[in-house]
């Protein structure tokens, strides 16, 4: 307890950076992931290929390597901090999984929905936006929830590139106090403060959306 009191500002700063990184990466990866999911199902062959290559590349390389790539290589050309490289890597990595999740959701929506919308005069884009994606997200929600929780936990790679996040601060505190056990218990509790409400919120959404249909 004394450990927490003495280092509270440090933990809090780490918590803040982890939260910020997670929020940015979550929003970014949802947008990118949805975009690449749609690219994989449009009739245009070239878009399908781009979407597929993107997903395969970022899904099949370890997150840590993508992070180092941005931190060590890209940062030579575009100036970016460890926090930024880690967050961008986390966003791209997660977006590949979200693309697959959303794509599966879209494919699970009955084909008649798109036909009905097109026959009704809606464009492909309008049909996607108003009819297909809302249903696809509802179907994909449980798996999306998994991705979001993984994302929060994966943000700990920021520690490897001086990203000032919870894990990084934990490492600092542990090194200074030599009390590794208590430090990482506290770090774990801070992660739970983020992930548990997220889990319950997703469960709540699932129940709510089930009732709406």
């Amino acid at each position: 307890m004394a450990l927490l009191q003495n280092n509270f500002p440090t933990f809090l700063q780490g918590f803040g950076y982890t939260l910020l990184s997670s929020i940015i990466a979550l929003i970014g990866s949802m947008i990118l992931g949805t975009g690449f999911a749609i690219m994989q199902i449009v009739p245009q062959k070239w878009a399908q290929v781009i979407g597929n290559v993107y997903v395969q590349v970022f899904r099949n390389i370890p997150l840590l390597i993508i992070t180092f790539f941005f931190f060590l290589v890209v940062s030579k050309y575009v100036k970016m901090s460890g926090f930024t490289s880690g967050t961008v890597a986390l966003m791209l990595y997660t977006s590949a999984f979200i693309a697959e999740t959303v794509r599966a959701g879209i494919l699970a929506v009955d084909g008649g929905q798109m036909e009905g919308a097109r026959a009704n005069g809606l464009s492909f884009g309008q049909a996607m936006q108003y009819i297909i994606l809302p249903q696809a997200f509802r179907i994909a929600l449980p798996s999306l929830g998994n991705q979001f929780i993984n994302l929060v936990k994966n943000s700990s790679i920021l520690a490897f590139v001086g990203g000032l996040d919870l894990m990084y601060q934990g490492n600092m505190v542990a090194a200074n106090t030599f009390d590794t056990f208590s430090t990482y218990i506290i770090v774990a509790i801070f992660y739970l403060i983020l992930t548990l409400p997220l889990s319950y919120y997703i469960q709540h959404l699932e129940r709510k959306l089930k009732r709406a249909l």
Partner: protein
Amino acid sequence: MSMIEFKNVEKYYGNFHALKNVNLTIDEGETVVLIGPSGSGKSTLIRTVNGLEEIEEGQLLVNGFDLHDPKTDMNRIRKNVGMVFQHFNLYDNKTTLENVMLAPRLVLKRDEAENKKLAMELLEKVGLADKAANMPSELSGGQKQRAAIARSLAMQPKALLFDEPTSALDPEMVGDVLDVMRDIAKDSSMTMLVVTHEMSFAKAVADRVIFMAEGEILEDSTTKEFFEKPKEVRAQKFLSQVEHH
């Protein structure tokens, strides 16, 4: 004036020849019923009219536009040609009222108050005013189909296509849907092309009957002629089969 015109249309699914040299003209305001055994190409034919299926050869003119021309904007055609499906295809994530209001709002940019007034009038007309706030999953099959018809009518199309609109319904639901369709057919400016197995509906409402088999149009007669003495042997056989149960 002709609303729909097929000229030497050919359609293939891989090696399967789905439409064989189809020539057919449907005038504005006509109600035409398309019948034939299953697998005869009725649904394929009706689905080409709003571009849900592409044709490989020939010419298909709808409302003056050539559907086989890549420059033709399909969305413009679909604005004027509504479609009612066997399995309704209502928007599952929208209420009945929203199902009717969505396309006019997005595509026609209809004023919101006017859109709602028109949508409610249409729901009234098909007997679903009290279901306006319900989701499609809360409607019966017949109600779903009537909602789908209201959704098509809300676009104020020049032509309506019906692809076996009563085939997925419980028998006691069929009558209500056919009544609504009969009402629409009375509107002299509406062109209707209906794929159906409801012979009594065809007899009562159709101006013309088209009989198809194996991708070909075998007979194109007035309703009276067709039901009194069909010219084609296959049409005679088909009629005796469907009318005796």
